[in-house]
């Protein structure tokens, strides 16, 4: 699962300090999430696309990763155009599509895709564990960072256990359907998974005790800012400021 998501490549984006990337992505997401003007959103989308081009993310991967967000958006398109009062644009039977509604839905679509595109550039260019280390360096609470690491570490192990259990029910002729037998069986599989995980937790605890664990977890990560990192950060700050100004001047 996690193992499949490899962050290989040697673009400029790949080589940036992960802390810079996280800060930039968060900043970008927040600015875009609170913006309204189409000019701002379109510029953000343009910026997002240039970043993803720079990161050299393969087209297929990009499309695959954009599917979840756009399914949600699609759902909104079913409702939003018809939920506003205003200038009618088109009609489907008794439903009247309204200009304001269409614009609203379009705005959300651009916003979401712009943010997600930049997020994809981040995760496709940085391994998940590096992100964890960078969060530590950015002073995220230590307990959260370590919780994150343990979850990442054992997701695959537990997933493999789940696959083996799922195979066991399969060879005994189990075919999932909408019935009690299916629900009970799946509940037992989940229960078994939890029991095994708690056993494993106990063994891991023991292993940690044997190595002198007394509640302190350490992280050995060190990152150092290079000139390119600082430059990218400044550039990103400037761009975000520009977007902010653009958005704000409309309000005024």
């Amino acid at each position, binding site marked *: 699962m996690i193992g499949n998501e490899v962050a290989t490549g040697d673009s400029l984006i790949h080589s940036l300090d992960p802390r810079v990337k996280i800060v930039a992505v968060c900043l970008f*997401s927040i600015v*875009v*999430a*609170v913006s309204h003007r189409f000019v701002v959103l379109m510029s953000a989308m343009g910026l997002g696309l240039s970043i993803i081009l720079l990161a050299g993310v393969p087209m297929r991967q990009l499309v695959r*990763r954009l599917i*979840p*967000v756009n399914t*949600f958006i699609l*759902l*909104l398109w079913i*409702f*939003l155009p018809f*939920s506003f009062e205003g200038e009618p644009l088109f009609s489907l039977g008794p439903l009247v599509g309204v200009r304001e509604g269409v614009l609203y839905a379009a705005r*959300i679509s*651009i*916003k*979401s895709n712009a*943010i*997600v595109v930049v*997020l994809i550039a981040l*995760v496709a260019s940085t391994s*998940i564990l590096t*992100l964890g280390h960078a969060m530590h360096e950015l002073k995220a609470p230590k*307990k*959260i960072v*370590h*919780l*994150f*690491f*343990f*979850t*990442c*570490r054992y*997701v695959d192990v*537990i*997933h493999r256990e*789940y696959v083996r259990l799922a195979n066991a029910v399969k060879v005994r002729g189990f075919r999932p359907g*909408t019935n009690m037998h*299916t*629900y009970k069986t*799946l*509940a*037992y599989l*989940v*229960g*078994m*998974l*939890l*029991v095994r*995980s*708690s056993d*494993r*937790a*106990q063994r*891991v*605890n023991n292993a940690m*005790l044997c190595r002198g*664990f007394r*509640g*302190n977890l350490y992280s050995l990560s060190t990152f150092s800012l290079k000139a390119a990192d600082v430059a990218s950060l400044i550039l990103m700050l400037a761009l975000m400021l520009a977007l902010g100004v653009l958005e704000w001047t409309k309000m005024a």
Partner: protein
Amino acid sequence: MHISEGVLSPSVLVAGAALTTAGVAVGLKRLDHEEIPSAGILSAAFFVASLVHVPAGPASVHLVMNGLLGLILGWKAFPAILVGLGLQALLFQFGGLTTLGVNTLNMALPAVICYYLFGWGAKAGTRQHVLTITAFACGSCAVLFSGVMVGFSLYLTGEAFLPAAKLVVAAHLPVMFIEGGLTAACAFFLRRVRPELLEGQYVPKSASQF
């Protein structure tokens, strides 16, 4: 149901993030340093469980299991769900970074509420049918509350979302029964095989156990 980036209004995003921060802070306070490994491994288990497809008529749904998570982890469900959703956002782009606060709140708060409402049924010594009924209630209410909260987050963003919000809540209704049933069966399983997990002692106290 994860809400995507860019949909919610800034005030909803900020409110969600603030409440989640508070919840996570309470959860972290109750999470000893020694318990982090166990909590991490259990939240990995819930992560895997949330990928399980459950057939529901012609469609299939993913398990949520936040009721059970609440039963087992209590307030620690907040940090566990935060990490789980953070991973989903990073790995699969379900949800997102700016919506992480709202999405975590929508799943974790029902988990904690159900822990307080129904957790007593899972404690040692309750009768089998009491456990089954409370676990069912816990699983189904947690999902129902989550659905309502997701709908409410949308509605607070704008009146225009009302139909979509209603649909979201309606879509959670059948899932509610499935989740309730699965949670009850799972609690039944745990009661027989590993009751300690249900009794709020999910952290194995290895050295002091015997």
